[in-house]
């Protein structure tokens, strides 16, 4: 028998192990604080046979409304740090904080809501929580949405920015998997209605066989969702911010949209090479992309702003 030993795994932690351990750890820490939290997507979606097993790079955790800061403080004490996120306009309110740790090869994405569930956030969380499923990950009990809700979580993830992220091909696969698992169109539409996702998940539900008419008088949240779905970059978000800004602030906003600060540019494009050359290339690419997107984006944002003004006058 050799000498038993224990090794500190600072660099060689296998990614699959890291995902399982981080999932167990963050769930446990949330529970210890009395915070309700649900693990989304990841290995649970594979266990629920909603998608093929794949190597995740982050742990997605949905935290009950109002408890995000407490959980983030707890994670920071253990060495998890917030990843820099540039202060730029978003069409959909930023939904997560990404935490990274020097010794871990995976991130933790802590979500305070899940985009596409347009219902009241507390009611949405309560609904997801009440229908939760429990699982053993690394020997620890964790909670996740049930299969029907997780189906919607995955569908909304694919539909959030299809123009930019090219995830639309996940929809037919998800539909096939859900049908194979015996999920019915009634279950899906019932849950989608409860969570405020009948319109945002409409392409998925329709493919599943549900008849969902388009909303003739969409809410602001739904119109922003649709605007976001057509976005490749941040042109629409910047144009909307400019449209909403007072006249004296518009030129400065336009300038910042075209030429963001170096830290912001690098935050948005971590792939840029180091040094000034990388920055110059990043700015040039950004201006070129912006010009390409502006015609389409301008008409969509104008329509959005016009409807808002009309609604504002009616109120």
């Amino acid at each position, binding site marked *: 028998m050799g*000498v038993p030993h224990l090794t500190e795994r600072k660099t060689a932690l296998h990614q699959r192990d890291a995902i399982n351990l981080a999932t167990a750890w963050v769930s446990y820490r949330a529970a210890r604080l009395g915070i309700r939290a649900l693990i989304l997507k990841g290995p649970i979606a594979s266990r629920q046979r909603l998608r093929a097993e794949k190597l995740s790079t982050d742990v997605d955790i949905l935290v009950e409304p109002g408890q995000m800061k407490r959980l983030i403080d707890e994670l920071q004490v*253990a060495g998890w740090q917030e990843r820099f996120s540039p202060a730029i306009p978003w069409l959909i309110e930023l939904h997560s904080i990404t935490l990274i740790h020097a010794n871990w090869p995976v991130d933790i994405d802590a979500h305070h809501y899940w985009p596409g569930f347009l219902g009241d956030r507390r009611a949405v969380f309560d609904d997801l929580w009440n229908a939760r499923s429990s699982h053993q990950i*690394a020997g620890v009990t964790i909670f996740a949405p049930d299969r029907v809700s997780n189906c919607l979580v995955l569908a909304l993830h694919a539909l959030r920015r299809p123009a930019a992220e090219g995830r639309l091909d996940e929809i037919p696969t998800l539909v096939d998997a859900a049908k194979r698992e015996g999920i019915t169109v009634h279950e899906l539409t019932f849950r989608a209605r409860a969570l405020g996702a009948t319109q945002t998940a409409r392409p998925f539900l329709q493919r599943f066989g549900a008849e969902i008419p388009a909303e003739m008088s969409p809410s602001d949240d739904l119109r922003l969702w649709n605007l976001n779905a057509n976005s490749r970059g941040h042109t629409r978000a910047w144009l909307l911010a400019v449209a909403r800004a007072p006249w004296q602030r518009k030129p400065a906003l336009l300038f910042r949209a075209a030429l963001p600060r170096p830290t912001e540019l690098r935050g948005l494009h971590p792939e840029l090479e180091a040094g000034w050359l990388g920055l110059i290339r990043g700015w040039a690419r950004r201006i070129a992309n912006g010009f390409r997107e502006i015609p389409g984006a301008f008409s969509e944002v104008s329509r959005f702003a016009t409807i808002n003004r009309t609604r504002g006058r009616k109120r």
Partner: protein
Amino acid sequence: MTAWARDTMVRRRENIAIVTRTNQLVVLALDQPSCEPFSISGSGVDVWQSIESSFQSISDLSNRISRIAHIDPRSIEGDIINFVSVLFSKGLIERGDEA
């Protein structure tokens, strides 16, 4: 802290996350302030798996391991004490005299 001896009682702490690979375990103490996983490999896996959730002495532990490895318990006791003291320092086990 009291020194480690044959009659020191040890048990696994509660709330340890564990992932298993062939001849290897990765363990993470969930109640520790830090978030540091540790890998246990080789004969350490047998030792870890022999440590129970109820208290047992290091001597009992050595006897159990010696039966698995078919060797004299006295020849491994020193290694086991060293290993167990490292597990203790990482918050993975607790001692009977400190529980």
